[in-house]
């Protein structure tokens, strides 16, 4: 039983549970109430920071970094994924290298990017790009490889050139897998932007969270985390809507 009211109701319930626990703690004092901010306190911090223009600034900074890093990685992953998925010799050459580099946790390279690109925007963008590229690239190449050879043969026998095959068969056939790869990649970008902004940044939601720790303001930490969650689910909703539109044919049955 899923209705239009299910989502808001579930979110309201979660908020209520949080409120009961935090306010209950404030009354009884199990732990220091400062350590467990209530929704009201988080709301107050949000309003303060939004009013001063701080919150939008941090939010846009993070969003800008994510958009650039993820955007570049998505383009590269799409291009190379199609190429490698379609071209067998290239795949055989690249596979061992990728399988070696891929399991290295990207955070291990963050200090390297800071050494190379300094504390400015470039290091963050490159870091997000690097982190999100591999999972997206591997997923896209894998969907391209799985495109049914019979569809390619059918198109070729109808006169499709190699470029037509990529544009009119491989791309639409791989689209469901590509959308999933992009969703995973964007989730990952939000995941790691925080880490990048913890280390040497003067703006961004990660910096805001770190500032909350430095100035002992747990409400600000919670607010930063919630803002990231909101951003993630917003993008996910957008991509799901786009997916439903683009993949109408799958739901047609």
């Amino acid at each position, binding site marked *: 039983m899923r209705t239009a009211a299910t989502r808001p109701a579930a979110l309201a319930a979660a908020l209520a549970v949080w409120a009961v626990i935090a306010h209950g703690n404030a009354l009884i004092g199990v732990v220091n109430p400062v350590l467990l901010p209530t929704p009201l306190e988080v709301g107050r911090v949000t309003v303060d920071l939004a009013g001063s223009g701080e919150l939008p600034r941090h939010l846009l900074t993070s969003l800008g970094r994510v958009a650039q890093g993820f955007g570049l990685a998505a383009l590269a992953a799409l291009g190379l994924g199609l190429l490698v998925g379609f071209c067998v010799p290239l795949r055989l050459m690249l596979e061992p290298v990728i399988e070696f580099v891929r399991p290295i946790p990207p955070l291990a390279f963050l200090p390297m990017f800071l050494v190379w690109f300094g504390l400015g925007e470039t290091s963050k963008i490159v870091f997000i790009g690097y982190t999100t590229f591999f999972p997206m690239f591997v997923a896209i190449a894998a969907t391209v490889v799985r495109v*049914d050879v*019979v*569809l390619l*043969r*059918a*198109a*070729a*026998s*109808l*006169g*499709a*050139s190699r470029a*037509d095959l990529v544009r*009119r*068969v491989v791309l*639409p*056939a791989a*689209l469901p897998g590509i959308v999933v790869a992009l969703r995973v990649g964007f989730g990952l970008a939000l995941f790691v932007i925080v880490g990048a902004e913890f280390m040497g940044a003067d703006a961004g939601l990660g910096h805001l969270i770190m500032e909350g720790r430095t100035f002992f303001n747990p409400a600000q930490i919670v607010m930063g985390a919630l803002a990231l969650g909101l951003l993630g689910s917003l993008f996910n909703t957008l991509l799901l809507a786009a997916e439903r539109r683009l*993949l*109408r*044919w*799958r739901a*047609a*049955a």
Partner: protein
Amino acid sequence: MTGGPKIQIRRVSKAFGAGARVMPALADVELDVAEREFVCLLGPSGCGKSTLLNIVAGFLSPTTGTVRVDGRPVTGPAPERGVVFQEYALFPWLTVTGNVEFGPVMQGRPAAERREVVARYLDLVGLRAHAHKFPAQLSGGMKQRVAIARALANTPAIVLMDEPFGALDAQTRETLQDELSRIQHLEHKTIVFVTHSIREAVYLADRIVVMTSVPGRVKQIFTVKLPEVRDRFAPEFTHYEAEITSVLREEVAKVRE
């Protein structure tokens, strides 16, 4: 190219795999198909009949030998050779119309002409009312009708059909055989049709090529001297069925040994 065979298959062999695990699939196949002829390749599963069709289509290249169409060697797939697959191979993201006009789009035909072509071939297979549906909304028989319309809309001289009715239920299968026979009397294509159904072959073919198994060779060729519109219950029809059955039975027995 008047007089010469439309399709010329000369000493075609095909082996899969490499080294010690080479599997011969076809050995020294010789076959000519005349223009407007309907030829069925018939044989037990694993006799390489689909492999032969894929070589004529240009999807596979022969290990030795050549296939010529109008005297020119086949080097790859081309729009002159339309293909209908057992698994339909419709583009699921395109509507029925989108699938049928795929070939004309590839040939760069203008939109108005494409509309005409789509209407004509959807009428031919009786699916005009379903033009805006997606393949997922169609039954197996309807999907194969769309696939046939898609192949014909590209006006190929040759249509290659790889067990096109193999996945359909018996009733739908006979209906589609009737339709294909009717369409052939209108369109006069050169057709190579792979099947393992003797009945289907006798119903449709001008000539039936019975193949041996592992590796596939041409065992015997039957010329079907029956009227254009065939009666599955006529004594002559049954006679062909019985004769081919006995030839084929030897082959199936050989595979079992």
